[in-house]
């Protein structure tokens, strides 16, 4: 790896470790809890109104797949992973640009595009590792606590979570690289994440609103019910496509503007 990629990792180390611990703790606690939860599941399931369950993309909390979906893959899991992706992504260009450190990063003998690409590569690898943590832990813990969901289905949902992170990474990178403004990049990335989540939620509960789900990245991640139905490559590719377009657009726009004005 290039000196710049290693430097980027060194500067992001604390943030990456912190998010990794948080995501791992969350996943481990919820997944392990299934054994003691199973008995009370029916109770919880009955307590939640149908509309709320639809909004939270919870079909049935009583089945192992339903439980995993309701805990790790529904709200908090994607929330943590997407937040980590946003926070790390604004460290590529906007943050050093705002605090002035970018000048001494850019004295690297690299073209503008190579510079942006290497900053992105370092963050892409970090975010991918963070987004993969839930999948790895669920695959490891599930058999021992009586969650009998096929490993392939867990893998497909987990890859979808990684794809979701890539999607928002790409969007946030594009805004940050094009403008150099951290607040704006976070606002756009975070705003679109919240909007995407809500769109998928309301598409299931309002009449004639079903088409709205196609606008939501969350639909491509979890709307296919991967824990029951397995792999849906086209949906996953849609998430990857958004990420790739965002990355490419960010690199091109960074190459065309003034830095540190």
């Amino acid at each position, binding site marked *: 790896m*290039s*000196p*710049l990629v*290693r*430097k980027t990792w*060194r*500067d992001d180390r604390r943030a990456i470790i912190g998010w990794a611990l948080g995501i791992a703790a969350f996943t481990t606690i919820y997944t392990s809890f299934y054994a003691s939860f199973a008995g009370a599941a029916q109770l919880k399931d009955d307590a939640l109104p149908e509309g709320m369950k639809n909004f939270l993309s919870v079909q049935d909390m009583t089945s192992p797949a339903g439980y995993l979906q309701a805990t790790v893959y529904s709200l908090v899991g994607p929330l943590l992973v997407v937040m980590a992706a946003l926070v790390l992504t604004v460290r590529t260009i906007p943050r*050093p640009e705002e*605090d*002035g*450190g*970018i*000048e*001494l*990063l*850019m*004295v*690297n*003998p*690299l*073209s*503008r595009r*190579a510079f942006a690409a290497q900053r992105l590569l370092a963050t892409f690898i970090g975010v991918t590792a963070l987004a993969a943590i839930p999948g790895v832990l669920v695959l490891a813990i599930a058999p021992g606590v009586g969650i009998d969901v096929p490993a392939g289905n867990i893998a497909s949902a987990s890859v979808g979570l990684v794809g979701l992170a890539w999607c928002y990474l790409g969007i946030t990178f594009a805004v940050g690289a094009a403008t150099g403004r951290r607040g704006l990049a976070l606002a756009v990335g975070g705003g679109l994440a919240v909007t995407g989540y809500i769109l998928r939620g309301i598409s299931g509960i309002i009449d004639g609103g079903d088409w709205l789900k196609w606008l939501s990245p969350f639909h491509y991640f979890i709307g296919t019910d991967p824990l029951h139905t397995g792999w849906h490559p086209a949906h996953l590719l849609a998430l990857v496509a958004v990420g790739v377009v965002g990355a490419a657009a960010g690199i091109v726009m960074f190459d065309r*503007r*003034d*830095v*540190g*004005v």
Partner: protein
Amino acid sequence: MLWSMTDDIAVRAEDLTKFYGTRRGIEGLDLEVRTGEVMGFLGPNGAGKTTTIRLLLDFLRPTRGHATVLGMDPRRDKATLHAQIGYLPGELAFPGREKAADLLKFFADSRGGVAWQTVTGLAERLELDLSRPIHTLSKGNKQKVGLVQAFMHSPALLILDEPTSGLDPLMQQEFLALVREARAAGQTVFMSSHVLAEVQQTADRVAIVRDGHLAAVERVESLGRRAVRTVEIHFDGPVDAAEFAALPGVSDVTASGPVLRCTVDGRLDPLIKAAARHDVVDLLSAEPDLEETFLSFYYHSEGAGDVAAGA
């Protein structure tokens, strides 16, 4: 080397212009820095020095005109070019919270492996402790880290923005020694400053900018020759100020009894010839100070007095 094939000009700016919206950074800059010289780039804060430097480094893109650095295009050839440039930012901010040594290792690696001995050698000369985390260093020590990274790879061109800011006088002397050694080794130095002393001691030529425009380019010696100097003449009896006020180059004449004070721009001859008509007891001519010369560029140009006073 690649750049020596083109010509003996290290930096050439042609009509180089940068506007930030409607605010002017630098306008119509035509400037040549010769290979192997030390050029001082002087002007008050806000005159456009940093804008010019950032244009040369391709951090900013010109609104109009263009620059050629080491015979190359700052944007197209950025990767090649930056391997041959040492840059010290005017506003130092370091990425990360690591030790000075680790940060400097990153610079050494990214430039294709600078011998670590070179880095430690520079650090010793500047009395910089490399084992401390960057963010705990004082302003002066941070400046030293910046200088070490700029000089470490013996670049063909050093672009230094306010290089002595924060350094104590002893370290300023050490820095000036580094600049002289760089010139002796054939490196070109382009350094901005609003402090004249450091430029006076090392620079071959100075370019002076004011309000976004190039005001003058001069050899440092000729800048001294055409300096405005203060002259005080003691006569053996009272003299009349009016007798001297009309002499060419003489101004600000005051006479109090036998003592005449005035400032002279250029040759002293007319004043001396006029004074010789009386009995002269003593004559004091203050050493031409570049600082005064520098300021005269502002005071003697319309509407620029406020800028100079504020600098």
